[in-house]
């Protein structure tokens, strides 16, 4: 203790006098002037520290063999054992492949959908109809995942609504959640159903920000409706599209487990099992807490790298950045 404070004194003594005085005073002065702001920030900081950073400290159990009786600190170190185990597992590459494919397909199909919808809504002349379409397409966003998954399973049974429709068009009945090849389609399709309307908000607001004079000028030049769409409307939302696209790229390895767990069964693990569901099973069914935490952390690190990369690209290309 004494040694520490001695070091501190030496440290301070080395620094320029003025700076030392300035620093302390500045802080005190700032605190006095803005003490209510500090008071407001206190619970905010407390929240992030307690509920995010303390659990992040708990991630050390990835390198330990966590035993509840010994606690996080008392559990023995095992180094990179669980990371090695993961890469040696038979399922590793399938998990990574499924995660990326599900994510890429979601991007390919799910990303353009709200853009197209927004453009279509934007072309509607009647404001009343426009507003109705907007309000109604937002609704699915607010429906519980449990309900969405429950209905999806209900409708896709052999005797369910989807098959009634398939049959009505003269098709053969399909067992949607029995065959691996349908899973991605069902997952992504229901995702689009739920989120496409919601996704238009941001594009519609970008569209509404377009200067009407541009259209007027184009009309005078004799441009038709479609050429205005291509030459004015679309280009003006390109920046928004790029920002969102980059953000999405950063999420490429992120596929949440909640919806998949509600939907899948072992006959379609081939396409449906992703990293997060595997983590869930390991951590909550197999008692492999450390293993699960290790894989989860591996996934988080990849996410972080992707976001940082995406952000760097964004800053260069678009001069937009998250931070």
């Amino acid at each position, binding site marked *: 203790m004494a040694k520490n404070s001695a070091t501190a004194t030496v440290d301070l003594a080395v620094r320029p006098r003025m700076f030392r005085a300035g620093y302390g005073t500045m802080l005190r002065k700032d605190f006095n002037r803005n003490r209510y702001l500090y008071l407001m920030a206190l619970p905010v900081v407390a929240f992030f520290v307690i509920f995010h950073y303390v659990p992040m400290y708990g991630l050390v159990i990835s390198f330990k063999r966590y035993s509840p009786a010994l606690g996080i600190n008392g559990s023995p170190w095992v180094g990179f054992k669980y990371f090695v185990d993961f890469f040696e597992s038979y399922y590793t590459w399938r998990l990574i492949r499924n995660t990326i494919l599900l994510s890429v397909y979601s991007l390919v199909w799910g990303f353009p959908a709200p853009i197209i919808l927004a453009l279509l809504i934007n072309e509607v002349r009647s404001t009343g109809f426009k507003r109705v379409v907007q309000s109604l397409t937002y609704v699915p966003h607010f429906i519980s995942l449990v309900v969405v998954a429950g209905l999806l399973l209900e409708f896709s049974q052999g005797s369910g609504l989807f098959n009634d429709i398939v049959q009505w068009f003269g098709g053969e009945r399909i067992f949607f959640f*029995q065959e691996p090849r349908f899973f991605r389609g069902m997952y992504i399709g229901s995702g689009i159903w739920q989120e496409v309307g919601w996704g238009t908000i941001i594009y519609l607001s970008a569209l509404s920000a377009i200067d009407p004079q541009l259209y007027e000028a184009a009309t005078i030049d004799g441009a038709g409706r479609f050429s205005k769409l291509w030459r004015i409307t679309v280009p003006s939302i390109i920046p928004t599209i790029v920002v969102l696209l980059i953000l999405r790229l950063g999420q490429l390895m992120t596929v949440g487990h909640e919806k998949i767990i509600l939907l899948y069964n072992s006959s379609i693990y081939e396409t449906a099992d992703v990293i997060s569901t595997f983590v869930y099973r390991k951590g909550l069914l197999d008692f492999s807490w450390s293993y699960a935490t290790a894989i989860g952390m591996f996934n988080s690190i990849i996410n972080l790298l992707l976001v940082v990369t995406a952000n760097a690209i964004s800053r260069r290309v678009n001069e937009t950045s998250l931070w």
Partner: protein
Amino acid sequence: MKKALLLALAILLVTGAAFAGGEEEAGGARELTIWEGLWYNTSVSVPTLDETPVYMAAQEATGIDVTWIHPPQGQDQEQFNLLIASNDLPDMIYQRWSREYPGGPEKAISDGVIIPLNDAMEAGAPNLTQLLADNPLWDKSAKTDNGTYYMFPFIRGGEDLMVFFGPQGRADWMEQLGLEDPVTLDDWTANLQAVKDAGLVEYPLTFTQFNRGRGINGPGNAFIQPFGTTWDFHQVDGVVEFGPYEDEYLDFLTFFKGWFDAGLVDPEFFSNERATFDAKILNGEVAFWTSYTGSGIGAYLDANGGQGTFDIKPLAYPVVNEGEVPFFGQRDNPLNGWGLAITSQASDVALATEWADFAYGDQGHLLFNFGIEGESYNWTTEYEGFEGERWAEYTDIVTADAQGRTLAQMGGLYTRSFYSGPIVQDRQYIFQYARRPAQREAIQIWSQTQAADHMLPLITATPDEAEEFAEIMSEVTTYREEMFVRFITGQEPLSNFGEFQARLEQMGIERAIEIRQAGLERFDAR
């Protein structure tokens, strides 16, 4: 402004108060906490066992106030896992220790989750001690290899209680088409084809996977066993085998794929949820299936009572050639691994022991099997077909609820015998639960297999073995389930069976078999 400040402070205080809120130990109170999954037939009527008549009576009889902790339905496994991870344990846990704790009971003890009960039982469990002394097989199954008792077990008190699952089919349709009860697999093929050809159903045979993503109750052993193997571990003359790793399993796959390709099996057989499965049977979309005596035959007949000709009969486990005894069938061990254990954090071990032992005495036995005398049961000497024996007969309160609740739901309120519990299950329960002739016949027909010779007893592993075993099997089970569907549906050609076996070997299946073998030998030596 002051108000806002106060609000902020209040938030912090509440937060702080919650952080500081530790446990308060009640000194001397006769109170216990028990963690256990709530049976879905009970959860229909009450949110916790606290509110069931049977436990209110038990509290009165013992003077012990039990608080129950129940996981969400279908989340038993996850919540048990979190409970262990939290190291914040109740006094007692009711669980299938032999299987659900990775590493088994010995590991649970060495991990400091539960405690050995030898001393506690000697000091305060005269009823159970006496029962185990009278029944050597029960005793052998109730402890680990090194002689440690670890739970107050669920005991099936008679052969009639151990068999409750098997093939069944639509009796009315079989009669209509003039079909004999199938005995051999060829008979089965003929029957399935006949029902399909008659246009009664599109797919005659179905199964259900009760529990999404974890294990299949599916074709289970009923149609695998004729080939002399099973879906899981079994023994042949003291040698442990893993069914899917045996060559006979290919014979089964080839045969079953034949059925599947011929449209004799419901394409959804692997993913059917219980409700879907039930609906298919009740709607007459299928003709044959495997299910239980109670929630199968009994429940379907109850539900479709009086609707058309709907009728069900139990069918024997199939064989290849007439005259053979089925290699395997459903049969439970008298002790199936479920039991109530005392945790290392129990505040009063003697009190917990007293509570648990109550169920094994005369008073507890009657209470947990039949409920409350004069309310849920009455004594009688004449029970249909069982002259001369003294019978505890369920009253109308249980068998004919005024609100239309089912027998099982009422049983869930007044007894533990209807599902399972730290009790000795009484065979008088099953004869009243299985009231119909078809159900009684089922028990009789399904009992005639070599299951008793081929199934593994309730063996335990050493902690090290158990962990290794759990690691191997977690991959193996997923792989087995997946490949089963892929083989049957043709996504994977049967010619790849060799690779399937090789992959199993690579995953360490031989080591797993070795561990089971060692366990079996130690069990026999107990």
